[in-house]
């Protein structure tokens, strides 16, 4: 499936937002999702709904984290 994740085209086997989240953050070794959020096609999807949100071709996903800022 072709997705656009954080502005970049990505071929992914992830069927749900939760699967994509695990795929994208595998190397970060995160204790929890605090400080992170996801939007699908311009709408925020709350964390409890990630597992039941399925993905389809050309979906645009934004995965963000809170970062240092002024």
């Amino acid at each position: 499936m072709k997705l656009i994740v954080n502005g970049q085209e990505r071929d992914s086997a992830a069927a749900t937002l939760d699967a994509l989240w695990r795929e994208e953050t595998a190397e970060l070794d995160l204790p929890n999702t605090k400080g992170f959020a996801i939007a699908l096609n311009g709408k925020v999807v709350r964390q409890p709904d990630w597992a039941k949100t399925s993905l389809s071709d050309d979906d645009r996903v934004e995965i963000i984290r809170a970062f240092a800022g002024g």
Partner: protein
Amino acid sequence: MTDALTIAGVTLSSRLFIGTAGYPNQRIMVDAIAASGADLVTLSVRRISLQGHGSDTVRLLAGRRFLPNTAGCETARDAILTAQLAREALGTDWIKVEVIGDRETLYPDVGELLAATRELVDDGFVVLPYCNDDPVVCARLADLGAAAVMPMGSLIGSGMGVANPGNLELICARSPVPVIVDAGIGTASDAVIAMECGASGVLLNTAVAKADDPVRMAHAMRYAVKAGWNARQAGRIARRGRAEPSSPQLGLVGS
């Protein structure tokens, strides 16, 4: 002095808000923020990257109140989505709305800022917009339901201080909501001047983060904001163009 700052029903323990970006390292950031006495700290929202730098900011600052920003956004639409993502990531409905109209000066795009403020207020956010030091823009933002207005002292990161104290006085005198001077503070005296103009608080980042000794500058800013606030509340003497002896004029020694 117990006259604390309250925004949207929340009483803050300090009139100084501080940013979390650009410190030499995270240890110094944490120490500087502690030295500043600020309990409201700003954060940004960015796409994840596996490089992970700055990744522990949220955990390191646990216990502080977060004010996420929409820095870097150029349209109301992007600012609104960024605010909604920040609310989800951090569990706060407070948002510093920043919509930039020009990458060179980082001046706000007023039209987009007003649109974003209107929509975010409707969506239940506590909106603190970064805006021009323009009394009319500040009034419009307050009319739309901004919980505070945050006019620039001068350009972001410039350290030029309060470029137009007259404007700031006007804004503070007329604003129905707290005025927080955001951007341009370079050193402690700039923060004092902002507060003496009638501001309710100061938001700064670079002045502390890029100082030679950030922790010490944070300490200075903590007391500068208090000094300026107390001086404003105390009421300064009138300026006069001639000398007025402060010692008694009777009983002088000699002829």
